[in-house]
């Protein structure tokens, strides 16, 4: 595939900074672009935004980047993880939802002077549809990825250009593949559910959120080896207070209903989710059914793992689910998200413990 060190020609001035000096990004080689199926079952259009913002509970605005759905005027999507976000676009990015076996095309348009890709994490397509720049190319202009999901489950998509920065900046969204019979079952012939929620649990280091899209690509220490998060979020909602009432995170369910939790460890740091005394049946991970589902009250996860869990409360009451975000070296808990279930109403919150150089404040 075409591969080259891109050394110039990039314009500046947009959110995300300029890019005159990006290195190790790889323009599309038209001669190597594969033909597309002329009759796809589903087409997703995605643009990008680099000027989003998220107002945290402490009143601070943090810059967010993400993908837009041009057909929806900037990208508020349904399906459970249509995020919030201020100007620019939704955060998390608009979800994709398809059915197992459909031929899908994702058309990414990058109309700014920069590069991005879409990697459909968990989808294993032809390599030029995998969205990994150094193996195929990064996108400036328009490129269409093609794939046909063989397995139902919980995926997500994210940018794979300067990934360490772009994914942390918020360039991700949920990707749900339903079984052939459609929503309502976790996978083909799998367990049923009545309602679902996507919890993409992530951490934000706001000191990274002033960098340009190509930060560090040509060398120089921009601090991308050190992640010291100061915000903890769930599906784009600040866990400090907002998640207590935000309907994008909170779930209302009745006794007897079966809730499918699509849990995505969307950050880079290890997490532990505890279901507040409720017992979850874990039925799948990384969109593969487990040979034997298991019952648990907690799950440890590392970056990008997904777990599909079914909860069916048998008793009304108040439950508190907690998600710890832990330091990747010391294991110290950096922040804890708590989630309360009041009778038939669930609420979520996050409490932050700042950690500076491994020491709690």
């Amino acid at each position, binding site marked *: 595939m075409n*591969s*080259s*060190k891109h050394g110039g020609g990039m314009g500046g001035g947009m959110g995300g900074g300029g890019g005159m000096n990006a*290195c*190790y990004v*790889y323009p599309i080689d038209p001669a190597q672009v594969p033909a597309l*199926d002329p009759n796809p079952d589903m087409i997703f259009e995605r643009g990008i935004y680099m000027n989003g913002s998220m107002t945290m509970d402490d009143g601070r605005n943090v810059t967010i980047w993400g993908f837009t759905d041009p057909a929806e005027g900037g990208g508020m999507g349904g399906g459970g993880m249509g995020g919030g976000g201020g100007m620019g676009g939704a955060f998390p990015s608009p979800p994709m939802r398809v059915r197992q076996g459909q031929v899908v095309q994702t058309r990414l348009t990058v109309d700014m002077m920069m590069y991005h890709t879409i990697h459909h*994490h*968990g989808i*294993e*397509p*032809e*390599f*030029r*549809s*995998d969205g*990994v720049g*150094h*193996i195929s190319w990064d996108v400036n202009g328009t490129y269409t990825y*093609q794939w*046909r999901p*063989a*397995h139902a489950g919980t995926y997500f998509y994210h940018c794979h250009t*300067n*990934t*360490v920065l772009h*994914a*942390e900046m918020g360039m991700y969204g949920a990707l749900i593949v339903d079984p052939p019979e459609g929503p309502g079952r976790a996978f083909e012939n799998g367990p049923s559910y009545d309602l679902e929620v996507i919890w993409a649990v992530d951490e934000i280091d706001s000191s990274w959120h002033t960098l340009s899209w190509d*930060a*560090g690509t*040509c*060398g*120089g*220490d*921009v*601090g*991308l*080896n*050190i*992640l010291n998060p100061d915000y903890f979020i769930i599906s784009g909602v600040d866990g400090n207070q907002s998640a207590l009432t935000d309907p994008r995170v909170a779930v209302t369910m009745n006794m007897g209903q079966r809730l499918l939790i699509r849990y995505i460890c969307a950050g*880079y*740091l*290890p997490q532990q989710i505890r279901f507040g005394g409720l017992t979850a049946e874990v039925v799948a*991970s*990384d969109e*593969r059914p*487990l*040979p*034997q589902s298991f019952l648990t009250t907690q799950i*440890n*996860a*590392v*970056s*990008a*793992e997904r777990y599909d869990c079914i909860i069916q409360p048998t008793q009304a009451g108040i439950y508190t689910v907690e998600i710890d975000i832990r330091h*990747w*070296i*010391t*294991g110290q808990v950096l922040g804890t998200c708590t989630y309360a279930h009041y009778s038939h109403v669930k609420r979520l919150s996050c409490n932050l413990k700042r950690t500076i150089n*491994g020491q709690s404040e």
Partner: protein
Amino acid sequence: MKRRDFLKASSAGFASTLLAGGGFLSWKSRAYATNVALTYYITHGWITQPDGVSVYFRGYSSSSNSLQVPGNSFVVQQGDTVTVTIHNRLTTTHSFKIDEIVDSGPIAGGSSTTVQFQPSTAGSYLFYDGHNEPYGRLVDLHGAMAVMPLGLDNRVYVGSPTFVQQKFWVFNQIDPVWHSNIRNRAIPSTPFTPRYFTINGLSGRPPGAPGHVDPAIDAMHDHETAVHGHVGDRTLLRMLNAGLATHAVHTHGNHMEWLTSNGQIRPVVWLKDIVPLDGNKGVADVIFPFEAPPDAWPPTSTGIYAMHLHDEMTQTAGGGLYMFGALTDIYFE
């Protein structure tokens, strides 16, 4: 064992030849145990990192005038009598240790020791400097040992899924401040803050970068690190983490069959595209099945796919340089 000289480095007049380690020995099963003899030389030197910074390392090297990180990994069989002779060419005390199997005890500077053991349990093991833990291990005094089940050449343990080839992926994280402290015989007093991330002692060199395609430098093209195969070439990946950070190992192209974690056989095999690898000597065995990428349309059986750690800080070097960290590529040929 194929070795490659890829860098001449010097420190205070000591010229060393750096050899990439972490490789795999071709190996055939036997119906009987035998004697295996190995020799390591504890040496030191400097390795230039992707951003041009030279960092001090120590290694279990294959000769007294080389520096090799990690040390040559090796494969034995259950019941073999393994004899390891370690010559400590430095002035500092070190050791050779495999948890639950062997511990040489202190090997004073300038001295030599021979240890002998008979591994009884199949699996993947880290050998490392257990003296003054974890510092010797972190400055790259480590390597990997595989113990094959008696008489089997295609299973991780009796009854495991089968494989047709195997590799070691030994990960480490490098804090140059700690390396400097250790060189100066000081206990590091700062939080461990890695700036470089390696797989089998190497890091990525993407297309266009100096050293790209050079198997002595580029983890994407080191034949002992990059994975090559055709559909059906089920590949066992023995993943060991000498460093302190928890990793999330992510393969593109295929989900992995997750067989073991920290020496324990998992009760059922999960298919995962992310497998956790604990810090501080974490171990996981997985099989990359080399099945046709399941979601390709139209179907295909060839292509190149990435393996990288999803704790993405590990994909950097010196605080930037994305793709110059712990990653490699998987080639469907």
